[in-house]
């Protein structure tokens, strides 16, 4: 076990993948000498060379499209998108090529591409630097989408993503980059919890609270705070956003009868809607109340002075928990 930051854990996982498979190649803007704007690739170009850790021209579609070509050639490209808001120029290559080539070629051509995307807000950044675009990708067939919430998972899941033969969008909760945790670097990713499985973070009886990425910490804190008030929250860290491990969520909701989902992305059409709809389908008769979504608002990510109003906070999550439990809450008395 080693104590390390979230960012360092990814770095260590990348290093392992580079060591283990000569076909792994890292690509992106400023990932070489600089080590990425968040230093996640720190030292890797120095150790593995410019042909394994490639600083690319400033063109996201170009990066993604050449990664497709490299995959054709048998490589496993790991692409860094510098910030969430800069993934859109690559959207066409992701949706029409990365996601569809395996289907198009009836399995002949694999696209084992990992796209690393630092995402989410809370770090006081200007526009385009704090977005949560995951729902665009969870709705895109052919992709897998994951998001780790702890250094250990960050370390393991990046390796699992890279060795997965399907394309994986790997969303890194950037406001947790400096959080520290224990990481067992001897853990074999092959025997760890599989990439598509959710994890129960805290057991609970009264309500199921589903979170992922940056809000897992907030959700856990909320569970601790709620315990003081006698409310027992079961926190589930989705880890995989596409597919969602509904078996895990279903099992919890059958027990608690109540569901709260939280994410930073805007509410309408966010992953919370998908989880709420699917869990309602699967356990309608177990639900004591409508699933509650505690999410960012349907606004462009706001300027930093107001971002904490946009982001689901511990209190706002607890307010949602209250709603799910039928306890007094900010919407009490409102119809519907």
């Amino acid at each position, binding site marked *: 076990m080693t104590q390390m930051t979230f960012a360092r854990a990814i770095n260590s996982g990348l290093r392992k993948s580079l060591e283990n498979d000569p076909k792994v*190649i890292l690509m992106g803007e400023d990932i070489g000498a600089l080590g990425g704007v968040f230093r996640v690739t720190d030292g890797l170009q120095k150790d593995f060379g410019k*042909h394994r850790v490639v600083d*690319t*021209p400033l*063109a996201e*579609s*170009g990066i*993604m*499209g*050449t*990664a*497709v*070509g*490299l*995959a*054709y*050639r*048998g*490589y496993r*490209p790991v692409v860094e998108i510098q910030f969430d808001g800069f993934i859109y*120029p690559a959207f*066409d*290559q992701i949706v*029409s*090529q990365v996601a*569809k080539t*395996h*289907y*198009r*070629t*009836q*399995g*002949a*051509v*694999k696209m084992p591409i990992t796209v690393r995307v630092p995402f989410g807000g809370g770090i006081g950044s200007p526009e385009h630097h704090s977005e949560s675009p995951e729902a665009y990708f969870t709705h895109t*067939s*052919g992709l*897998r989408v994951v998001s780790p919430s702890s250094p250990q998972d960050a370390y393991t899941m990046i390796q699992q993503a890279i060795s*997965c*033969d*399907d394309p994986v969008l790997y969303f890194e909760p950037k406001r947790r980059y400096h959080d520290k945790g224990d990481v067992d670097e001897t853990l074999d990713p092959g025997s760890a919890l599989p990439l*598509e499985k959710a994890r129960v973070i805290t057991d609970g009886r009264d309500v199921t609270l589903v979170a992922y990425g940056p809000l897992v910490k907030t959700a856990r804190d909320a569970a601790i705070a709620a315990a003081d008030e006698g409310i027992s929250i079961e926190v589930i860290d989705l880890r995989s956003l*596409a*597919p*969602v*491990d*509904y*078996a895990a969520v279903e099992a919890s909701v059958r027990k608690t009868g109540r569901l709260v989902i939280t994410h930073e992305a805007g509410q309408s059409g966010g992953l919370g809607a998908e989880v709420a709809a699917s869990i309602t389908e699967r356990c309608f008769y177990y639900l004591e109340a409508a699933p509650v979504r505690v999410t960012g608002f349907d606004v462009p990510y706001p300027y930093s002075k107001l971002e904490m109003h946009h982001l689901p906070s511990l209190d706002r999550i607890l307010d949602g928990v209250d709603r799910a439990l039928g306890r007094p809450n900010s919407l009490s008395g409102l119809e519907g």
Partner: protein
Amino acid sequence: MFTDDAGKGGIAAGGPGNSENSARRTGGDLVQLITPAGERISHPEFDPWLQDVSDEQLCSLYEDMVVIRRIDAEATALQRQGELALWPPLLGQEAAQIGSARTLREDDFVFPSYRDNGVAYCRGVKPEDLVRAWRGNASAGWNPFTVNVATQQIIIGSQSLHATGYAMGIQNDGADCVAVAYFGDGATSEGDVNEAMVFAASFQAPVVFICQNNHWAISEPVRLQSHIHLADRASGFGIPSMRVDGNDVLAVMAATRIALDRARHGGGPTFIEAVTYRMGPHTTADDPTRYRDANELEDWAAKDPISRMKSLLDRKGLLTADLEAAVAAKADAVAKELRAGTINMPEPQPLDIFKHVYSTPNSWLDRQQDHYSRYLASFGDPAEAASEEGAR
């Protein structure tokens, strides 16, 4: 079809060791080696790249062009008869496609567009594979790795980046094969094609960009995309380019060999503009009379790549009745194969739509497949399950 053994590691016979002079310079001048009347014009820089092209090979190039035109006609007929949903004819572009594709080595890798059926044919793609997707029986026609040709790209220009990435992989591998991207004049406006040139130039990747300027992007004339020659675009990225008569199979061949040779020897990317003409509609669904002048078509008919080749063979005394008969027989045979392959193509099964979305199990999709198979089972005949009007 043949693979250019002569091209392995550079042209065996007569290729100049250093191609800098001939191709670094950007061609405002259109290189032509065969006139529309079939006359062979000598060209000091291009000729050396063709010294090994024997009479036999000339006849074989001619054959390929005739065959692919016949495939095109047969596929068009199949579309009219309702056997194909759509077909994008390459009529008029036979020299551009055959001339370039025939110079490639087996281990070169091609990233073509929907219209590059002649290229695919040269690489060994089977006739029915050419129409598989247009019949609606698959999303794409073939396994790229059996012929070293990616499936035909529909997103305009996208494949230029794939070729460049593939070439970066070749470079990393220390191999001397080459990636080749085919795209049209319209594609040069897409960001992707320009980014491909940025990457190719930055990494000096062994990739050849072959732009078939067939003068039209559906209804849009090439001057809407650019007021200057498309070949000149490349020089702005630091990529050498050539502008050749795309209806002249030898000019295209020589240019491609120059480009391949450069790529194989660490010289980086090349851009070739093959100036040609789309003599047919954009696809069988298109009506070009709405946007283009019949005269234009006439002008270009006079520059037809196949008649030009025929005249050349005639002048050389190679156009014998035997040759004509052999070529016609071959074309007939391939057309027959195409038709039979089309009509007898096995029908896909309903649950096939769930296959190969992922290479590993996926809980979302597995459940949907399970549900849909239960749904299908509730019908006597699964075909009924898919009628829009409803069967119940």
